[in-house]
């Protein structure tokens, strides 16, 4: 029954056997190709490597002298640039112990001079919130308020909800799809359009299918990265701070979001700062709580923060269309209206060969006007990409997620204790679905931000702050790096 390994790309060196959820996409048995820094002493001759019981490496030279060797450290940037091992993360040591990073910044703030302090902002994803709500047996609203209280107790200044930034991701996706659908005659690669909010999918696409797949990817930024723009551009201005004075942390259901945050596209050369400085998983937040000796349920709830006054609410809001953001649902309803003048009340999903592969169609008088699908998990992504390669992809739009069952089942979510994992997932889905949904067009503050901050929908500023681009990664050259 064991489906080992959570998460697509990143995981610390531990293997949990009992989890039937996201699986590592079996990647090659390739050694990491990042070169080891070896200080060569002149005339050193042959040295032997000796491994101590604690796992540290000592170089023993011919004269018997020993020298402790530095562990090769792999940074997230190196990971992104390589197409070698990527997954099977047992052998890759990730330098950023993220919740410890956050602590360091908070501790530094305590002793820093007022002008040197950093404004710490934490953006929590609705999926992480649902996972914590399940563990602590709280409602999503209480979880949101108590998490806010917890982070502020640690010294965090503001706590936001990425469901707010998700409005922009959805609106931009809707607009982009309609544009591409209308422009089909001019481009063979306009459709199908694939969602791009899942970094596991993006890294796989860039590394395995590179220039073939990239034209089909949506350029809309994910909610995490829209929040990055919001916090480091809009909010920074509001607070009269330069972006580098803000330390932006996001709480996410998977490890792959750490890779997304460290993409060069999301680093501001001008201000020498990332849009998202640190990503902690739901599990890492739980560790923080444990380390502080705090039980979330026992905290006094605090009022929720919001990015702009018109967006203030004391209850979180969410979106329809499932636990992975609702891209298909929103783009479908918008496209039906915009392109065909058809109002769709309820979107009906038809499962295909498995529950992670579903179809939605818009038909009129026997003709199929729109054909959309969701494809979650590696096997379904495989089939989708192969169909596309053969020119047999029947879909206009596909919501692609790396994890079976989507983001609520991400590799960084809290694991089941005692109960079967399936039951926990259903519980988390139920809690996620409890939150009141709002159409992005109607969310207070969003239209205002388009007007004031972005200078209009479809503006150059909107393009720069709400969209991104992708880069094919050349495969590591064979021979040296591959073990035959």
């Amino acid at each position, binding site marked *: *029954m*064991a489906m080992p390994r959570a998460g697509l790309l990143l995981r610390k060196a531990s293997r949990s056997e009992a989890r039937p959820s996201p699986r590592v*996409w079996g990647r090659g*048995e390739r050694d990491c190709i990042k070169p080891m820094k070896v200080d060569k002493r002149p005339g050193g001759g042959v040295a032997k490597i000796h491994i101590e019981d604690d796992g540290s490496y000592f170089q023993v030279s011919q004269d018997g002298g020993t020298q402790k060797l530095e562990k090769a450290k792999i940074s997230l940037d190196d990971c992104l640039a390589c197409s070698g091992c990527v997954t*099977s993360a047992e052998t890759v040591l990730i330098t950023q112990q993220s919740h410890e990073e956050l602590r360091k910044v908070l501790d530094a703030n305590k002793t820093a001079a007022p002008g040197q302090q950093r404004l710490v902002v934490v953006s929590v994803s609705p999926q992480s919130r649902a996972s914590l709500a399940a563990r602590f047996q709280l409602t999503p609203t209480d979880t949101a308020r108590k998490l806010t209280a917890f982070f502020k107790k640690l010294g965090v200044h503001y706590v936001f909800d990425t469901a707010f930034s998700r409005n922009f991701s959805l609106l931009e996706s809707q607009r982009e799809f309609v544009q591409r659908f209308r422009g089909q005659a001019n481009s063979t690669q306009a459709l199908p359009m694939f969602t791009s909010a899942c970094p596991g999918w993006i890294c796989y696409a860039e590394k395995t299918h590179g220039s073939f797949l990239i034209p089909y990817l949506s350029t809309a930024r994910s909610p995490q990265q829209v929040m990055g723009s919001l916090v480091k551009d809009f909010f920074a201005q509001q607070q009269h701070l330069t972006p580098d004075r803000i330390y932006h942390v996001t709480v996410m259901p998977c490890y792959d979001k750490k890779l997304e945050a460290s993409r060069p596209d999301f680093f501001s050369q001008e201000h020498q700062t990332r849009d998202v400085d640190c990503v902690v998983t739901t599990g890492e937040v739980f560790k923080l709580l444990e380390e502080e000796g705090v039980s979330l349920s026992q905290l006094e709830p605090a009022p929720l923060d919001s990015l702009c006054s018109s967006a203030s609410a004391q209850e979180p809001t969410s979106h329809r269309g499932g636990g992975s953001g609702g891209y298909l649902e929103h783009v479908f309803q918008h496209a039906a209206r915009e392109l065909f003048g058809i109002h769709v009340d309820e979107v009906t999903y038809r499962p295909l060969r*498995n529950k992670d592969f579903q179809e939605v169609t818009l038909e009129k008088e026997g003709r199929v006007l729109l054909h959309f699908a969701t494809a979650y998990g590696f096997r379904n992504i495989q089939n989708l990409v*192969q169909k596309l390669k053969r020119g047999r992809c029947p879909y206009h739009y596909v919501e692609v997620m790396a994890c079976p069952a989507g983001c609520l089942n991400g590799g960084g979510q809290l694991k089941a204790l005692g109960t079967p994992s399936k039951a926990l997932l259903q519980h988390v889905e139920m809690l996620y679905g409890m939150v009141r949904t709002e159409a992005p067009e109607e969310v207070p503050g969003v239209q205002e931000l388009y007007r004031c901050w972005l200078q209009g929908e479809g503006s150059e500023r909107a393009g720069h702050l709400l969209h991104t681009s992708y880069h094919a990664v050349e495969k590591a050259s064979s021979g040296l790096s*591959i073990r035959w």
Partner: protein
Amino acid sequence: MKDSLVLLGRVPAHPDSRCWFLAWNPAGTLLASCGGDRSVRIWGTEGDSWICKSVLSEGHQRTVRKVAWSPCGNYLASASFDATTCIWKKNQDDFECVTTLEGHENEVKSVAWAPSGNLLATCSRDKSVWVWEVDEEDEYECVSVLNSHTQDVKHVVWHPSQELLASASYDDTVKLYREEEDDWVCCATLEGHESTVWSLAFDPSGQRLASCSDDRTVRIWRQYPPDNEQGVACSGSDPSWKCICTLSGFHSRTIYDVAWCQLTGALATACGDDAIRVFEEDPSSDPQQPTFSLTAHLPQAHSQDVNCVAWNPKEQGLLASCSDDGEVAFWKYQRPEGI
């Protein structure tokens, strides 16, 4: 014992190259071979000799490691180090590549058809086992990607009558898989070998599984369903597997292949010491603790490692073998008297 295995003939199947694997078609009339020269060859008889009837050379960019016939005999699958698996459709003596299955990260090590003919399994150095489904229009779709092994997966084989899949790996284990709801799951892990498990073969009934290894042993495993008479404990509804026999001390090098004759129950092995051996179960032995005797041992069967042995499914005693020396040999096995 030497006379129990007699050479019928040899062919230089993949000259200047290795011959990696052999597969008889279900009718027993054709033998497919594959090798380091990137080709697949189809052999048939003409009178007393074996001749090459077709060469499938345009399918792969690198070594072809295994070939497998579909149960109906109309299709042949070839697994290659170029990370793809080709499906060839037979049209009399011609074979046309109708599909190429992609997706494995690196070398595909094995391919096998399920008895129903609707499912195919592949495995790779990328540590994964894939299950594919084929529909009426010869379209293949990936049904499951199984990441249970922790190292290179060397071989996959299906149970003769159930949709149960077995895999052998460099991680020293054998794993079994079955369908559960809309996915496949690993339902058993057989531990015991002390090194790479290279190949597997089910017995004619499917109740037992033979595995061969770099540890120079062949192990026989038996399936015990829940509530079995022997009182073997099972967890949940999955059968337990126990190692009921270990053949050790017979092989002096890695055993690369094991073949279980579906007609007679004889076990043949292909060994890195260039020899072919045949074992038969002692009729009076306890089914729960069987003993096998060596009934044939042919040293120097080939001039290099023997990679594969394959029993003809229709003609009793007809055995084919192939080697790193590029040759295919045909043998007549006859059970020695008095055993």
